[in-house]
């Protein structure tokens, strides 16, 4: 029972208690949906509780003990989310893993987290775990959701989730009181979940977050945007990512809104359209991909449609953002915007699955201002937030009406921020993590005695708006030989804002100017090639086509003009660049699983190319090893052209 000085809301300080509350308060409201066999199946909060409890009893019967850790591996499925809460009901902590990690990466995390039980989605994941089982003496039992293909496996250490639930229900009379006792004794200060950071450098670290971290942050952020149990969300981002844990678990359980799981990764767009969520998060990459596909389809549309689209999108660009922000706009423009809404914006938002979005967020990388404003001008309330795993996501976020493409917002409720002398951003909040698991040294490096955490990002507060602006990773910010500041990610983002450029990696620390590698976007450039009769057989060939290099060179020049306009960073203009002969790939270790470039590894792998960029060469022979999806190795080689980019002259004087 709640103590008198606590509100009943605060008494629910764990997921198990929140589940009980939701089942009692809104038992017949939908808790989860999943598209299976072409139909959306849903579970109410009461049904979800029954499933979770049955699984919790089953896990306990199988021997899961308080203090254990349970790995959860798979795509977003309601049963996998429930298995996390079921583990917590047994006093254990879930450790969700990236489902696309290769077996070796998984082995490290499973071993480091001393995982005893693993709940996995299907045969693919079972195979991976069995392949590394020899190295994991702690791993006792693997539970699987989808039995397909597993019939003939040795079931010595394998159990179907449904079988575990059946076992739990069978012995409910004995197990239920035991689970109830564990749940009642849990407090908010206990560890809730362990999330491994993808690690742009070194081995991944296990971030331990408490119930208080997750739930206090969830409550504050849900209140910030006025989320209620009438909202809905599509859970499609990796379960191992802290954002998904906050959105699909924390905020969902705190407010009681419904979490829908897509049918498969490929059907995400269709499912998004069918569900029409009111609350949506996507990394910039997704918004870019969507906009690219819209642009490509409009290029192929008939002339009337195309003109209609161009006209009203132009109108939206002029007044759409102002209308969304509630700034003054003339009545004529407002009326015309209404017409546009009926003819273009409404149908377009419907096709994108964004008709009902009330609050949308993007974070993780900088988003192109063009892209950001495109969505906002259509009336989609897209905002930015800044966060990290160690903060239980929220550090800063943008309030409605004060949204900008180049800032990340004001401190979230309950978060204190300060900028260190080196320009590094520090924060302190109720969401600050407990520790890095079995790594006291790293914990001490990141979090000081007063609870201030170093973000590792360099940034500053904009004087007039009070919003935070992030420049780059603090350790990545370097200096050119001239002494001018070099912010690689800033440069890369300027380049990546062009739809034709998918990835960019820039170099310049300790050099006298900046050079860059570029990956073209095959969808965008491919569509252009088709329209312009440019024949190509492969990515490699298209990337080196003279007309493509010319097109990219023009875009680099354009980016340079934009970089030159910022006096602090104008020396960062790209002098020479090349288009890589292969796409950067996490399987080759060139990117993290969350698709961030690993600059150091790339620099090592492509050393000869960097040398050539800083020489007078006009082309270079490139040859690298690549890993295929099945684990085999091969080599890709090609002659790559080096292109001199146009720079803006006065920039150098300002920099000097």
């Amino acid at each position, binding site marked *: 029972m709640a103590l008198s000085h606590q509100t009943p809301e605060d008494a629910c300080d764990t997921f198990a208690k929140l589940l009980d509350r939701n089942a009692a308060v809104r038992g017949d409201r939908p808790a989860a949906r*999943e*598209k*299976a*066999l*072409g*139909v959306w*199946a849903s579970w109410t909060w009461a049904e979800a509780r029954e*499933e979770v409890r049955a699984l919790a009893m089953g896990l306990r019967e199988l021997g899961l003990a308080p203090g254990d850790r349970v790995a959860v591996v798979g795509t977003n499925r309601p*049963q996998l989310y429930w298995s996390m809460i079921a583990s917590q009901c047994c006093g254990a902590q879930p450790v969700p893993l990236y489902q696309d990690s290769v077996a070796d990466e998984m082995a490290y995390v499973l071993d480091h987290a001393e995982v005893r039980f693993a709940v996995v989605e299907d045969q693919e994941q079972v195979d991976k775990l069995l392949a590394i089982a020899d190295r994991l003496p702690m791993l006792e039992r693997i539970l699987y959701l*989808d*039995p*397909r*293909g597993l*019939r*003939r496996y040795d079931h010595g250490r394998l159990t*179907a*989730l*449904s*079988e575990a*639930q*059946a076992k739990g229900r069978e012995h409910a009379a004995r197990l239920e009181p035991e689970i109830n006792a564990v749940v009642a004794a849990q407090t908010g200060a206990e560890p809730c979940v362990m999330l491994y950071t993808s690690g742009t450098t070194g081995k991944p670290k296990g971030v331990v977050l408490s119930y208080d971290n997750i739930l206090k942050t969830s409550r504050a952020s849900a209140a910030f945007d006025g989320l209620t149990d009438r909202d809905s969300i599509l859970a499609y981002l990796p379960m191992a990512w802290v954002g998904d844990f906050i959105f699909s678990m924390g905020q969902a359980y705190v407010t009681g809104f419904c979490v829908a799981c897509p*049918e*498969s990764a*490929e*059907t995400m767009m*269709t499912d998004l359209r069918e569900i029409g969520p009111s609350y949506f998060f996507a990394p910039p990459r997704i918004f870019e991909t969507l906009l690219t596909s819209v642009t490509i389809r409009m290029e192929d549309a008939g002339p009337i449609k195309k003109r209609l689209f161009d006209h009203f999108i132009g109108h939206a660009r002029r007044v759409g953002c102002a209308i969304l922000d509630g700034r003054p706009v003339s009545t004529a423009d407002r009326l015309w915007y209404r017409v546009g809404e009926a003819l273009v914006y409404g149908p377009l938002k419907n096709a994108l699955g964004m008709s009902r979005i009330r609050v949308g967020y993007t974070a993780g990388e900088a988003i192109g201002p063009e892209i950001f404003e495109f969505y906002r001008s259509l009336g989609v309330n897209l905002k930015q937030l800044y966060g990290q795993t160690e903060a239980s996501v929220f550090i800063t976020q943008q309030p409605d009406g004060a949204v900008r493409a180049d800032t990340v917002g004001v401190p979230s409720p309950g978060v204190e921020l300060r900028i260190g002398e080196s320009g590094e951003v520090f924060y302190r909040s109720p969401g600050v993590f407990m520790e890095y698991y079995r790594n006291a040294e790293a914990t001490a490096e990141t979090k000081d005695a007063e609870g201030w955490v170093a973000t590792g990002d360099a940034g500053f507060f904009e004087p007039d708006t009070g919003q935070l602006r992030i420049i780059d990773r603090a350790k990545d910010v370097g200096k050119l030989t001239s002494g001018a500041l070099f912010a690689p990610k800033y440069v890369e983002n300027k380049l990546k804002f062009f739809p034709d450029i998918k990835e960019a990696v820039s170099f310049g620390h300790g050099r006298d100017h900046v050079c860059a590698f570029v990956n073209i976007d095959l969808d965008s450039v491919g569509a252009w090639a088709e329209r312009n009769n440019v024949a190509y057989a492969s990515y490699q060939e298209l990337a080196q086509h003279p007309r493509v290099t010319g097109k990219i060179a023009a875009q680099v020049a354009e980016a340079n003009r934009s970089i030159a306009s910022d006096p602090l960073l104008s020396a960062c203009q790209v002098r020479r660049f090349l288009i890589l002969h292969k796409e950067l790939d996490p399987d080759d270790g060139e990117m993290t699983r969350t698709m961030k470039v690993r600059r150091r590894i790339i620099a090592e792998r492509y050393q000869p190319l960097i040398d050539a960029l800083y020489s007078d060469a006009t082309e270079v022979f490139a040859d690298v090893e690549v890993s295929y*999806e*099945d684990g085999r190795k091969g080599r890709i080689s090609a002659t790559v052209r080096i292109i001199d980019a146009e720079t803006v002259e006065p920039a150098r004087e300002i920099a000097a």
Partner: protein
Amino acid sequence: MNMDAQLAAHLSGGRQAGGTLLEVKNITLRFGGVEALKNISFDIREGEIRAIIGPNGAGKSSMLNVISGFYHPQEGEVWFRGEKRRPMRPHQIARQGLARTFQNIALFKGMSTLDNIMTGRLTMMRRNMLWQALWKGPAEAEEIAHREAVERIIDFLEIQHIRKKPVGALPYGLQKRVELGRALAAEPKLLLLDEPMAGMNVEEKEDMSRFILDVNDEFGTTIALIEHDMGVVMDLSDRVVVLDYGRKIGDGAPAEVRANPEVIDAYLGVAHE
């Protein structure tokens, strides 16, 4: 959805080794003066994956067409499920529990994946055209049941994302998968696959191999397949028949067949003295 239901589905069906499902005895097939098949005999056991291999023009597809009832051999008998087969039209044979895919994809290009697979259920639809035209009532209930069966296949083959796309616009590997789906929709006892991996890249071949093994494993469907890729055949099949110029030159486990000198000659084209 209940997790128990999934478990129940998982425990029913499944692969069992069994008796003879189909037997061909002394088949000879002639087109005018050309003898496409000469006195061929072999059997297919329940639950196995049986491969028919051979160089170009060996008579593999002819053999499959005899089994599927498309060709009527001049001599010999086909025994299916313990009964000698009398001459029948292909759709009658389909009703007996036999389904196939084609070497050159034979789908309805303008129709969606869903509709194409639905056509595979045609032999199982009981309501006549009048009922279907009325739509409400029994025909509707029947269609819902069939749709669910089709959705299970779509889920099984992992083609949810192309459910509503016209198949003509799909890449080749996916079209092959849709064709497999249509054959599966007929819930066959014996599934005939005519070069399921022809023209596929390595990744598509791996996917298709996985699906063939899973069909065999999950539904207990007996499979007879024609294939060129020896690696695939050796990995997938339980037993292999080798044809060359319309004659049977080998029959047995993959390892046995591979060691057979006559088979090696036929494949590598060694000169005979």
